[in-house]
C-alpha cells in the first residue's frame, strides 16, 4: 500500500500512515503482492472508492470475526506457489518442493472458499482449471501436509523403484561381505570410509582389500577398496538408480505440463486469492474498529460524525482512558482554536486519517462520513518530523519551506491541515502570514483546517471558526505531584468536542489553569493571573 502523491513523508508520519498500513495488511504472500500495488483513489474515482469501501463493509458484516481470523490463518499458511507456476510456464520440470507448494496452496484455496461460502464474497477461487491441476497432483499427497512422487503416478516408476531396491540389497550384501571379511581379518569394526589401524594392533600384514592412504610411525590410515563382486553390483545399482531418476523426471515433466497448460487460470486464481486476502484484512479493520462506509462524492463537503484518530484511541485504551469522538464539517478552510491540550492537533489528525482511509477505499473510523477525494493531503506544522537541512533551518524556516513546497506542488484538490503555523514568530506577523495563507488556499479551492492560538485569525480571514469546547471549570491540582494523575484530572475536566463558534468568539487557551494543574508553583500562577 503506497501513498503515492496523496501524502508526503511528513504528512504520512503525522497522520500515522504506517499504522493504517499495518492495520489493513494482508496475512499471506499472495495478498502482500496485491497490497504492495495498492494506491489511493484519485479525484474522478469517487464511485470506485465508495464501491470498495461498501464491499469491504459488506464483507465485514457477513463474516463473524472468528471466521475472519480463520481466513487470515489460511491466507497466512498458504505457501507462495507463483514461482512454481512461472517455472512450469517456462517449460521447466518442477521440483517436488514446488509440487508441495501447489498442494498446500490448493488446500488453502479450498479452505478459503469454504470459509467464504455464504458471505458477501461467495465467488469461489477454485475453478475448473484449478481443480484439474490439483487432481493431477493429488496422488502425491502424503499425510496431512506432505507430498511424495509416489508409485501411484506411474507403473514404470514403481517397477524402476522395485528393481533399484533389489539391486541395492544385492550391492549392500556384496559390500557387506567384503567389509565383514576385512573386519574379521583386522579383528575390529570398519564403519568409516577412512580408518586408522594401529601398528600395535596389527597381526601380520593388512588385508588385500585395504589400501593405505598415509603411514605414520604408530599407525596407518587406510581405506577399503571395492572388490570385483561389489563393483559389479554397484554398477548394476547405479544403472537402476539412473532408471529411477529418469522415471521420476518423466512424472515431474508430465505434472509440470499440466500446470503449464493451466498456468493462466492458476495465475488468475492466485490474483483472486491475493485480492481476497487484502479484502478480508480490510474487513477485519472495519469490523474491529467499527468503521462506517463514507459517502464519497466529488462535490461533497468533508464531514464526519463521531470520528476517531485510531492510533491515539488505542493508546488511550491501553492506559485505561478513552478517546472522545468528534464531529467536523468543512467546506473550505476553517480555523480551529481552543485550549492547550484540548485536542486541536488530534482533531486535525482525525480529519486527515478519515480522509486518508476514504482515499484508499476503506470504511472510515466514524459513525458517518462524507468526503470528496483529494489529490493531496498536506500536513503543515507540529509533528511533521521534517529534518531536512538539519540544524541549518529554524523551526519557523522549516515550516515556511514546507509550505512553499505544498504551494508549489499546486495539487488541484488539496486537503490541508495546518497545525499552529507561524507559532514561533511574533504574533503580529505570524497572524498576518496565517491569514494570507488561508486566503490563498481559499482562492485555490482547498479544503482543510488551521489550528492556531493566534487571536482573531478567523475573523480576519473571513473563515469558518471552530473551537474545542475546553475546560469545564478550573481543574484542581492533584494532592501529589504525579503527572499521570494530573493528566487524568485534565481528561475528566476537558471537553474535547469541536463546535462552530461565531466570528466574534473570544479565543481561549486556559493556559494558566493548565500550567497550575501540571505543577507550576502557586505564586507564579498567581502572578500570571494578575498579569492577564
Amino acid at each position, binding site marked *: 500500500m503506497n501513498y503515492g502523491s496523496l501524502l508526503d513523508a511528513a504528512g504520512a508520519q503525522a497522520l500515522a500512515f504506517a499504522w493504517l498500513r499495518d492495520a489493513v495488511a494482508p496475512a499471506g504472500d499472495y495478498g502482500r503482492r496485491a497490497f504492495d500495488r495498492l494506491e489511493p483513489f484519485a479525484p474522478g474515482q469517487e464511485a470506485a472508492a465508495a464501491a470498495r469501501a461498501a464491499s469491504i463493509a459488506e464483507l465485514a458484516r457477513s463474516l463473524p470475526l472468528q471466521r475472519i481470523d480463520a481466513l487470515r490463518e489460511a491466507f497466512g499458511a498458504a505457501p507462495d506457489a507463483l514461482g512454481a507456476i512461472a517455472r512450469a510456464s517456462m517449460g521447466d520440470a518442477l521440483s517436488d518442493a514446488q509440487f508441495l507448494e501447489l498442494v498446500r496452496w490448493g488446500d488453502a484455496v479450498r479452505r478459503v472458499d469454504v470459509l467464504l461460502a455464504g458471505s458477501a464474497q461467495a465467488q469461489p477461487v477454485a475453478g475448473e482449471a484449478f481443480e484439474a491441476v490439483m487432481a493431477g497432483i493429488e496422488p502425491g499427497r*502424503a499425510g496431512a501436509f506432505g507430498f511424495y512422487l509416489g508409485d501411484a503416478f506411474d507403473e514404470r516408476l514403481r517397477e524402476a523403484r522395485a528393481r533399484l531396491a533389489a539391486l541395492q540389497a544385492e550391492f549392500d550384501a556384496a559390500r557387506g561381505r567384503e567389509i565383514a571379511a576385512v573386519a574379521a581379518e583386522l579383528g575390529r569394526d570398519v564403519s568409516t570410509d577412512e580408518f586408522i589401524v594401529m601398528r600395535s594392533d596389527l597381526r601380520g600384514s593388512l588385508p588385500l582389500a585395504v589400501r593405505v592412504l598415509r603411514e605414520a610411525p*604408530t599407525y596407518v590410515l587406510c581405506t577399503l577398496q571395492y572388490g570385483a563382486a561389489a563393483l559389479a553390483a554397484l554398477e548394476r545399482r547405479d544403472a537402476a538408480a539412473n532408471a529411477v531418476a529418469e522415471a521420476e523426471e518423466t512424472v515431474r515433466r508430465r505434472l509440470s505440463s499440466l500446470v503449464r497448460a493451466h498456468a493462466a487460470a492458476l495465475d488468475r486464481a492466485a490474483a483472486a486469492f491475493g485480492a481476497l486476502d487484502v479484502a478480508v484484512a480490510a474487513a477485519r479493520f472495519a469490523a474491529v474498529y467499527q468503521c462506517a462506509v463514507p459517502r464519497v462524492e466529488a462535490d461533497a463537503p468533508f464531514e464526519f460524525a463521531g470520528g476517531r484518530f485510531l492510533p491515539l484511541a488505542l493508546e488511550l485504551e491501553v492506559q485505561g482512558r478513552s478517546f472522545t469522538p468528534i464531529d467536523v464539517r468543512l467546506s473550505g478552510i476553517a480555523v480551529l482554536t481552543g485550549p492547550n491540550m484540548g485536542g486541536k492537533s488530534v482533531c486535525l489528525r482525525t480529519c486527515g486519517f478519515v480522509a486518508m482511509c476514504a482515499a484508499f477505499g476503506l470504511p472510515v473510523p466514524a459513525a458517518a462520513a462524507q468526503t470528496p477525494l483529494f489529490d493531496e493531503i498536506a500536513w503543515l506544522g507540529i509533528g511533521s518530523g521534517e529534518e531536512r537541512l538539519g540544524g541549518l533551518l529554524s523551526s519557523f524556516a522549516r515550516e515556511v519551506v514546507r509550505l512553499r513546497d505544498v504551494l508549489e506542488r499546486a495539487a488541484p484538490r488539496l486537503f490541508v491541515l495546518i497545525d499552529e503555523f507561524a507559532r514561533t514568530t511574533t504574533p503580529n506577523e505570524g497572524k498576518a502570514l496565517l491569514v494570507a495563507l488561508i486566503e490563498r488556499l481559499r482562492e485555490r479551492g482547498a479544503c482543510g483546517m488551521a489550528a492556531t492560538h493566534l487571536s482573531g485569525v478567523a475573523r480576519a480571514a473571513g473563515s469558518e471558526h471552530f473551537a474545542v469546547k475546553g475546560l469545564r471549570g478550573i481543574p484542581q491540582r492533584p494532592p501529589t505531584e504525579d503527572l499521570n494523575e494530573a493528566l487524568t484530572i485534565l481528561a475528566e475536566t476537558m471537553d474535547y468536542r469541536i463546535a462552530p463558534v461565531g466570528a466574534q468568539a473570544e479565543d481561549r487557551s486556559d493556559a494558566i489553569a493548565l500550567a497550575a494543574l501540571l505543577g507550576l508553583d502557586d505564586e507564579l500562577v498567581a502572578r500570571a493571573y494578575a498579569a492577564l
Partner: protein
Amino acid sequence: MPVGRELLDLWRASGARSLFVVGIGKNVGKTVTMRAVYDAAGAGDATVGLTSIGRDGEASDAGDGAPKPRLWLRPKTVVATARDVLPRSPASELLDLLNLPTAAGDVLLARVAQPAYYELVGPPTASGVRRCVDALLSRCDLALVDGAIDRVAALAGGRDAIVVAAGAASADSMNDAVEQVRALVQRLGVPQFDPHEPFRRVDGALTPALAADLIAAREPRQIVVRDPTQIALSGKAASHALERLRLRCERPLHAIAATIASIGRERTFEPKAFARAVAAATGLPTFDVYAETRAA
C-alpha cells in the same frame, strides 16, 4: 562394542532426545561422529532425524575441494535441510515447509524414501535450529545435529546431549587442540548455581570486558548466566575466567562424550596419545571414531 553404539548408549542414558555434535573447528570429525551414532541408532528400531548448523554431508570441501565424509541415509530417516540441496532423485517424501531461509533455499522437512546420499544445510539462526530440532522430534524418536563451536547459541533453551569433537585439523599442535577442547567442555559444563549462596546474575552475555571487570574486582559471588551459551569467551580467555570466577548457570548443558580425529590434511597427531590427553583434559569418555577405540 562399536564406538557409535557406545556413544548412542551414553546419549540414551542422558535422557535427552536430541544430540548436538559440536566441534572445536572444521574437519574435526563431526560428520563421522554423527554418522557413527546414526548408524548405531539405525541398527535398532529408533527413527532418527538429522539437521545441521551450517552445511554438512557435501561431497567436497567448498574451500579446497578436498573430499569430505558423506551422509548415506536409510529410509524413514527424517532430515531438516534446505530445498536446493535435497537430492532430486531418489525422491524424498516431503513432510513440511519450515519457512526458515538459508543460502540454499528455505528449510523443509523430508523423509528418506530410498537410501541415498543427503546433504544437510540448516538455518543460520539459533532459533531456526531449535525449530528444526522441535520439528524433527515431533516426527522422530531422536534428533542428531551437526553443530559448530561458534554457533553454540543454538543449544540454548534445549535439553540436548552434546558430544564435543576435537581434531588435528583445527590446531597447530596437539597441546593446542587439547586446550581448545578443554575450554569448550569447561564452558559447556558450567554447573547450575546454588540459590542459597550469594550470586550476581548477568543479563545477556558474559563478554570478555565484563569478565575482566569481575576478575579485577575479585568478585567472590557466583556469576550466574542463563546457560553456558551466554558465556561469550573462548579458548584461553574462557579457561582464565573459569579459573578465577565462580561461573554458574541457570540451565546447565550436558556434554556426554568427546571424539577425536587425529588425522588432519596438514598434520596428524599420535592417535592414542591424543585420545588420552583429551580424555584427561575433559574428564569425558573419549572415542577415536577412526580407530574405533575408546581412550583407556
